[in-house]
């Protein structure tokens, strides 16, 4: 059976001599100073969403597309609305002279190679999350960003979601008191599988459903958990000290190699906790982050944020003497622990700051490229969330507690 690396290698080798597969010539004029030409490596389903979002930013054009799966070219060109030049070898895409920045949305195991090469070619990079598959790979990407002096933005759109931004401001302003726990969920009720035109074609299955195979994927924790883990790191302001985890292929026994459910608990300095769960058999919780503080709770979802402040507890004015002298009366009663929720306060988003998280993330990246600004979700965000995911997966796989200090140190 041909694995993905072989699939990639064979395809790239067979086509290496053909620099531009498209019969269409690159007729773009020399880009005016305000036009940003992007190349994309990996315009699959996620890459195509990013393309649409980038094309909503004024002055952005996709000038090169690279994929190893032929049908992606027609799909991506439908999005650009033009005969965008296509490549099957990303190195040839990087040889194109007219590109200002590269969008990397390939399978996780290729992030290190594609992001680093893009940076080395002198381009800024929008790198789909998470940063890279292993701690060592995250180190390499981080170092490549520093070495080349180019901007790297991690593709975590919720970092730019206005209700996440507003929630973080409230938390940092102390509105929730001291944050002690964060519980995060990404629960779905489907098999997390992409349709494959020919299910009997095993190589194609691994190509399209790369998320299900260990060679390429970090599983649910990497593909879904990164968003919540990055937010928790921003709330708590530090790396975890340790992580324990569990997971298994317990329901979708369809040949996949990554767990169909994972639960991890990160422990931070001061005993603060991040719990993350992802399951594929029930979507009651959906995508949700609950930030618990001594003064209240903020719940964030894909579409909104809501704050629940704890009711103030007043000091009793009952004189001590009364209780001591008269005593209290006993009676039968039962009062369960009732959770306080109240109606909650929707976190309002200023109208001029609203928009889809994808659009806002892409808009921000183009602003960084155009005006030489440093991205918000930068290489440090990428490294921290990347190693947290990698070590979380190590804990799931080993069933043992993983101590961060023994495995991860920010490269100098």
């Amino acid at each position, binding site marked *: 059976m041909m694995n993905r690396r072989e699939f990639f290698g064979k395809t790239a080798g067979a086509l290496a001599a053909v620099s531009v597969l498209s019969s269409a010539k690159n007729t773009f004029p020399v880009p005016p100073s305000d036009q940003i030409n992007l190349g994309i490596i990996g315009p699959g389903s996620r890459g195509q969403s990013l393309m649409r979002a980038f094309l909503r*930013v004024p002055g952005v054009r996709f000038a090169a597309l690279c994929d190893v799966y032929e049908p992606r070219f027609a799909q991506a060109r439908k*999005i650009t609305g033009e005969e965008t030049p296509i490549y099957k070898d990303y190195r040839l895409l990087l040889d194109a002279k007219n590109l200002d920045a590269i969008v990397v949305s390939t399978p996780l195991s290729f992030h290190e190679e594609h992001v680093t090469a893009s940076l080395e070619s002198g381009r800024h990079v929008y790198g789909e999350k998470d940063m890279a598959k292993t701690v060592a790979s995250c180190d390499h990407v981080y170092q490549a960003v520093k070495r080349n002096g180019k901007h790297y933005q991690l593709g975590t759109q919720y970092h730019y979601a206005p209700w996440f931004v507003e929630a973080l401001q409230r938390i940092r302003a102390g509105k929730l008191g001291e944050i002690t726990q964060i519980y995060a969920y990404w629960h779905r009720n489907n098999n997390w599988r992409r349709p494959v035109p020919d299910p009997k074609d095993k190589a194609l299955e691994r190509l399209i459903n790369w998320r299900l195979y260990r060679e390429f994927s970090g599983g649910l924790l990497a593909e879904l958990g990164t968003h919540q883990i990055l937010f928790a790191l921003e709330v708590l302001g530090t790396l975890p000290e340790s992580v324990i985890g569990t997971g298994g292929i317990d329901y979708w026994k369809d040949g996949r190699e990554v767990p169909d459910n994972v639960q991890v608990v990160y422990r931070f300095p001061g005993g603060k906790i991040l719990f993350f769960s992802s399951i594929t058999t029930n979507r009651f919780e959906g995508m949700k982050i609950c930030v618990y503080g001594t003064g209240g709770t903020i719940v964030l979802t894909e*579409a909104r944020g809501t704050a629940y402040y704890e009711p103030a507890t007043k000091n009793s004015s009952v004189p001590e003497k009364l209780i001591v002298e008269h005593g209290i009366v006993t009676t039968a009663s039962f009062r369960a622990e009732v959770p306080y929720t109240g109606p909650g306060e929707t976190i309002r988003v200023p109208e001029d700051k609203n928009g889809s998280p994808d659009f806002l993330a892409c808009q921000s990246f183009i602003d960084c490229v155009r005006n030489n600004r440093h991205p918000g979700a930068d290489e440090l965000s990428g490294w921290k969330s990347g190693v947290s995911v990698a070590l979380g997966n190590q804990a799931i796989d080993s069933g043992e507690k993983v101590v961060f200090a023994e495995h991860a140190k920010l490269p100098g």
Partner: protein
Amino acid sequence: MFYRSHPAMGTIFTICLYAVDRHQADADFEIAFEDIDRLDSTLSNYRPESELSRINRTAAREPVTTDPEVFDFIQRSMDYSHRSNGAFDITVGPLMRAWGFFRGQGHYPSPTELANARTSVGWQHVALDPTLRTVRFEVPGMELDPGGIGKGFAVDSVADLLRANGVTSALIDAGSSSIYALGAPPHEQGWKVQIPRPEDRTKSISTVFLRDLSLSTSGNYEKFFWLNGKLYCHIMDPRTGEPVQGVLQTTVITPRAVDSDALSTAMFVMGPVSGVKLLKTVTGASGLWVLGNLKATHIVEWHWPVNVSGTAYASGDMHRSIPRHFEADRSKPRGGNI
């Protein structure tokens, strides 16, 4: 046959399809509903984070760049506005709000409400720049409302995806108002669609079999209110600023659902006399009007694929009426396979 429903765009999308097994059908449904959700989150004017909402918020201040797909959607909408002389108009939103149909069942607006709304309606005030793919509102308070065309746009997109994925027989149904028949069920001439009587939708006025064709219906019974014995429905005539009177239902068949969706609204507003002039410009189009009121209705058709009098409505108080000048066109060849 496999069947799945899914809420989106304020309605229920239903897809029936033939596949070799459940596994393949699931894969087809996955592709289809993911695309519907994608378009819903792009074109919704109820979700503040959608692309259309972003355009609505910003385009009166400055030109808004959008992606080719959304630009194409707006451009098609404007094209139908132009061709229908404003009878179809996706800037009708402020009027819908003034008449209380945006989130409710409607009410009669005050003269001030109506006057204010009318200043913010008019497709002519939407400036499109195809080179830069920008949208700009020349009048403040404008907004784009995808209601009359968005479902058809989504149905076409899904039909294209399913076809590209190897599906040869499927029925894609957006809330029963926009339907696309991909191929036909095995051994059948087409997918059977019944057009109901507006006043009693358990009864049918026509049954058609569609193959690689779309059908869309607009009716005055979805949202309406009564005032002084008069029915006010949610379909506005953007040119007068008032709900259309005297039309109960329109149904249009065309090869593409985006066309039938827009045209069913346009035909409702234009009525048959000027409506037919527009239908004539669309290859393979046919239309069916139910006119009058609930006590006295009559049907007008143009190029309708079956004899309308041959169906179940005949015992009611309806009667068929085909003006002579429509009949002159019946000899023309028709597009599509019916």
